[in-house]
Structure formats: structure tokens, C-alpha cells
């Protein structure tokens, strides 16, 4: 998570860029392109599509600098533009929408993750394997990956995450917990399957 100094640098760069300073905007691109690309990659099918979204998002940010009010961080503002660009592209190309997280009973998810079972250590053991973690993360649906990316990888605040996703804070918290529990279930299952493989 960027510290206060990093946020102040972002705000200074944004103000300078809004005054026409292309170098300042270029510095913003350099600082945030990895986060923007990660979200774009998550919301698109191919790396090429993600590159298009990255370009569109930064070009949109450049022309919309005067609209940045400083109510959220610069990074949150850029990620919001990125998400809107990706959703807009999906609408234009009539791709299937991101499915909402299935409404699964939390207890069932918990049981799959090892909650209340005879071997709760299964989850801890599977978590130690980076491959299991990465495979389980990749196995999540896009809605779950998106909220985990924003909250746990980009470490946006709960308030910014909710605003970016257009959710109330309680709804964001509920979706986040379901996503984490689903990940726990998939990680444990990855571990179990690996144990059974010859």
C-alpha cells in the first residue's frame, strides 16, 4: 500500500499533469502501469486486450485530469477509470458479463475449506505451496478475483474498494469474505488433489 509520501507525490504529479506537464503524467504512468495492467488483465481475456485497456485508461485519465478531485487516491482513481474502460469494452464487444459470485451457503464453503472438519491443518499445509495458491487464485471467478485483487493485493481501503465496485460497504465486505472463503476452499482442494496425484 502506498504510504502518505507516495500519495503526496501522486497528487503533486497529477496537479502538474493537469497543468499540461507531460513528463509529470509520464511519471504517473510509470508509477501505476503495473497496477492498471493487473486489473486490466483480470477483466479482459488476452494480454493484448489488457494492453488496449491500459492505453485507453491512461489516455482517458490524461484528458480527464481536471476531473480528479482528490476524494480518493490517484491510484484508486486510475483503477476506477481502468475498470470502466474494461466494462465498456466488454459491452461493446458483447462479451459475456462477469458472473456474480454464486450465492453459496457460507457453511458449505467453510466445509470445503476444512472448517469444522477432522483435518483443519489441510488448509494451512496447502497454503504453504505457492503453486496451490496461484492455481486456486486463477480458479476463482472474475468477480472474486477482482475484489481480492483490489483489497488484498492492491490493498485499497474498504471504502475505496466499495466505491470502485459500486457497492455499499456491507455488500463489499460480504463479497470479500465469500471470495476469501472460496479461495480457501480451492486452496485446500488443490492440496488434496496434489496429495492424491501419483
Amino acid at each position, binding site marked *: 500500500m502506498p504510504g502518505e509520501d507516495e500519495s503526496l507525490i501522486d497528487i503533486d504529479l497529477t496537479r502538474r499533469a493537469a497543468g499540461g506537464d507531460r513528463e509529470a503524467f509520464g511519471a504517473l504512468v510509470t508509477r501505476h502501469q503495473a497496477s492498471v495492467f493487473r486489473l486490466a488483465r483480470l477483466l479482459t481475456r488476452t494480454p493484448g486486450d489488457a494492453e488496449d485497456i491500459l492505453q485507453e485508461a491512461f489516455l482517458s485519465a490524461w484528458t480527464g485530469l481536471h476531473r480528479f478531485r482528490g476524494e480518493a487516491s490517484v491510484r484508486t482513481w486510475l483503477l476506477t477509470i481502468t475498470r470502466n474502460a474494461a466494462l465498456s469494452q466488454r459491452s461493446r464487444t458483447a462479451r459475456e458479463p462477469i458472473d456474480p459470485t454464486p450465492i453459496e451457503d457460507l457453511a458449505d464453503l467453510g466445509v470445503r475449506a476444512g472448517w469444522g472438519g477432522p483435518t483443519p491443518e489441510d488448509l494451512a499445509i496447502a497454503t504453504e505451496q505457492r503453486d496451490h495458491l496461484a492455481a486456486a487464485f486463477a480458479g476463482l471467478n472474475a468477480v472474486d478475483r477482482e475484489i481480492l485483487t483490489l483489497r488484498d493485493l492492491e490493498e485499497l481501503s*474498504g471504502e475505496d474498494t466499495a466505491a470502485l465496485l459500486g457497492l455499499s460497504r456491507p455488500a463489499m465486505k460480504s463479497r470479500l469474505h465469500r471470495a476469501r472463503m472460496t479461495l480457501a476452499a480451492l486452496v485446500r482442494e488443490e492440496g488434496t488433489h496434489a496429495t492424491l496425484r501419483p
Partner: protein
Amino acid sequence: MRPCDRNVAGLTCLAVMADLSLYLDHDLPDARAAQIEAHVSACQQCASFGAAFAELITQVQERLREPDPVPADVESRLKARLLVRT
């Protein structure tokens, strides 16, 4: 049948599991957080699962944080496009 749904310290195991993220994110009122701690201190199954769940979130944050690299020419192509915009 749920395998772990005892009522300990005024909370069921299911209620504790449902609030785990809020607890770990320090997003619960103090009284509720204390109730969860009292439950977990007396319920080995919830203690084990809670610890594993907390470790999972820590590992996600630590091991998956590094994003895929942005292709090398993306930044230069973007900046070239910015140059032709007023």
C-alpha cells in the same frame, strides 16, 4: 449436518466463521471482536481454522502481490500517443 456448530461464549462456530474477515480486517466493534476471541480460545476447531484462514490471507498478500510484468513496449507506445494529443 454442520460439523462444527457449537455455541461457545454466546456465539456459534458458524457465526465466528462468518465474521472471520471482518475480525481480521479490524472491522468489528470491540465487543464483537472480544466475543470472537472468547469463542476461539475455548474452541479448538475454530482456533485451527481461524489461524489457517488468517495465514492464507497473509500468504495471498505476500506471495501474489507482485503483478505480471507490463510488456516492455507498452509504456513507450502510450507516451508516443500522448505526445500527439493536445
